């Protein structure tokens, strides 16, 4: 039932702490409105801003950070936003498997929120870029300072972006794909 000559789905994971801009980034790039899905409560707590749980109910309607970019008629890129928190790791494994890689969003006022996501990517050898979101008062930090603070490997791209700008979000995704491509060349 699988057909190797058909359209190809690709995915990118968008990670980072609460309020760092995941939803903003996914919506900026997606050509479809946010999906309302009905999911079991365990899975529903992922990538979700607001869970309205009803007692006695095991599923709930959630708005996923899920976006779609139809790159061409045979290549579709999906974006999955997910909070980088320990209790969501089970979710990460499924989303990260086979993905292009991850964008780890960082709010420099709360750098530590991105540590778990960075650790995860490093441990699983998932290609990732660190995207410094342009929040007020964060321009004083250089990318190099951040690289040092996060103890990033020299090849990991650190980019600045503003999740409220479509072009900026696209540039971040492009940086990730470039990096993932380099990794395939180096590794293979």
């Amino acid at each position, binding site marked *: 039932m699988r057909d190797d000559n058909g359209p190809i789905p690709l995915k990118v994971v968008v990670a980072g702490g609460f309020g760092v801009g995941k939803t903003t980034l996914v919506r900026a790039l997606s050509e479809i409105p946010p999906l309302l899905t009905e999911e079991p409560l365990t899975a529903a707590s992922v990538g979700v801003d607001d869970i309205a749980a009803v007692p*006695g109910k095991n599923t709930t309607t959630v708005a996923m950070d899920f976006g779609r970019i139809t790159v061409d008629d045979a290549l579709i890129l999906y974006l999955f936003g997910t909070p980088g928190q320990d209790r969501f790791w089970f979710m990460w494994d499924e989303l990260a498997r086979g993905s292009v890689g991850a964008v780890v969003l960082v709010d420099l006022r709360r750098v530590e929120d991105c540590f778990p996501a960075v650790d995860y990517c490093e441990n699983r050898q998932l290609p990732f870029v660190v995207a410094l979101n342009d929040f007020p008062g964060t321009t004083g930090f250089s990318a190099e300072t951040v690289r040092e603070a996060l103890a990033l490997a020299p090849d990991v791209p650190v980019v600045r972006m503003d999740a409220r700008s479509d072009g900026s979000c696209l540039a971040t995704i492009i940086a990730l794909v470039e990096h993932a491509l380099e990794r395939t060349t180096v590794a293979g």
Partner: protein
Amino acid sequence: MTPDEPARHTGAGRRDDRVVPVYAVTGGRTRSSGRDLPVESLVLATDRWAGDLQKEHRMIIELAGRPVSLMEVGAALRVPVGVARVLVSDLADSGYLVVHAPAPAGVGGRPAAEVLNRLLAGLRAR
């Protein structure tokens, strides 16, 4: 997203606006029968005539007139993606749909360089 467990879904709490009652469409089966389709797997309708199928199956086939992911199928039918996976598998088995799973993996299970190059070119052209 993970293999779902809608089996414990109770009638009492069911949303009235659900398009498809979970049990009805999956015949009580709530797990995919060993098929491990990732949630981004694409579904595309074949030209097999589907006029005699039940409504929710026809909805999926209509939706799959262009490539859509399991995630999108689940959302359109208002069922968990695990249920969408079962429905899609059944329709694929009987020839109404073709499922395009992610490209054969390159190094480390990641997409191959050729695919990434195409993706890069497509994104840069935007």
